[in-house]
């Protein structure tokens, strides 16, 4: 008797497991969405290395003259060197110490620049308008974005 009851119990357990699996499969009847592909950022660290005139603005109508002002600031350049791990050495907001930052592709196709890890975190900035002699960054953190505005980097000694 004892062996039978154990057998029934085992069969019951198997059925329960099958039920859970069935329910699980039913709930996932649609094709599971694929794991997001890791896309390489559209910008390389080498593109950011160099000496830059750095200026900021908040109103779009100030962008053109801010770019000119950035170029005029090359006597006080913001220097970006390559980091030991392949990133770039830059300052985080309000930090006087250089950190190695990496370029990261965000899910919506944006390129982020920040500490290694997920894209789009508070220490990141979004990189836009990249060409050999210029790029623009916008802080992800709203407080940083509000205080520093949109920052434009213009290469000192154009390529």
């Amino acid at each position: 008797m004892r062996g039978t009851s154990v057998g029934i119990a085992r069969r019951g357990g198997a059925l329960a497991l099958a039920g859970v699996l069935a329910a699980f499969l039913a709930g996932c009847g649609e094709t599971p969405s694929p794991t997001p592909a890791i896309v390489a950022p559209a910008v390389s660290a080498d593109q950011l290395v160099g000496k830059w005139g750095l200026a900021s603005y908040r109103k779009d109508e100030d962008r053109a003259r801010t770019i000119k002002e950035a170029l005029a600031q090359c006597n006080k350049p913001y220097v970006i060197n390559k980091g030991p791990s392949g990133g770039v050495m830059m300052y985080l907001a309000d930090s006087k110490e250089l950190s190695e930052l990496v370029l990261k592709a965000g899910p919506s196709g944006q390129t982020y620049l920040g500490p290694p890890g997920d894209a789009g975190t508070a220490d990141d900035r979004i990189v836009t308008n990249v060409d050999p002699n210029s790029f623009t960054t916008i802080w992800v953190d709203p407080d940083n974005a509000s205080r520093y505005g949109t920052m434009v980097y213009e290469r000192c000694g154009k390529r």
Partner: protein
Amino acid sequence: MKVRASLLLRVAFGAVLAIVAGAGAGAQTPGQDESNVVDQPGYQPTPEEEQLTGAFEKQEVFFRTSEAPGTVVIDTRSRFLYLVQPDNRALRYGIGVGRDGFQWSGLQKISRKQEWPDWRPPPEMIERQPYLPRFMAGGPGNPLGARAMYLGATVYRIHGTNQPQTIGTAVSSGCFRLVNEDVIDLYGRVAVGTKVIIKQAVAL
């Protein structure tokens, strides 16, 4: 609250920097641009923070002077700017002035006026805060505030501020700062060519 706490930390940090920087201030040449010490570029004060109270609130006062109405008289010791009115009266504004070693006196004229002036941190500030943009287009949060009135051919200005808590203090490199509401008011009342008298103390 987190943002506010972080801002307070920054102000405290800036104050420490100010003390450190102030120790060597005597070796610097007066006349450098404003904003050597406790600036918080980009910080936008709340309306409550910008509301002055007591003596530093804009008010009409008794002011006996032989200067013509329309003249600006700055009293650096008392941290007041007077705009002379008829009949021994003046509009008095609370101001922030140059810290020790950066106060000066003289006679100037307003040579230029600018709405929402741009800001360029001086080189020594870039050294201390290398993450700063070297140019910040005018607008809210700009350390020079809403208006600037340039004094003759000097680098000094009467300007606004994004740090209303510095009104009544000596923190600048020789410029005179008012809260934005007051500097907008003053800007509307004075013209280029206005006589500006800067004194260490004004005898009323």
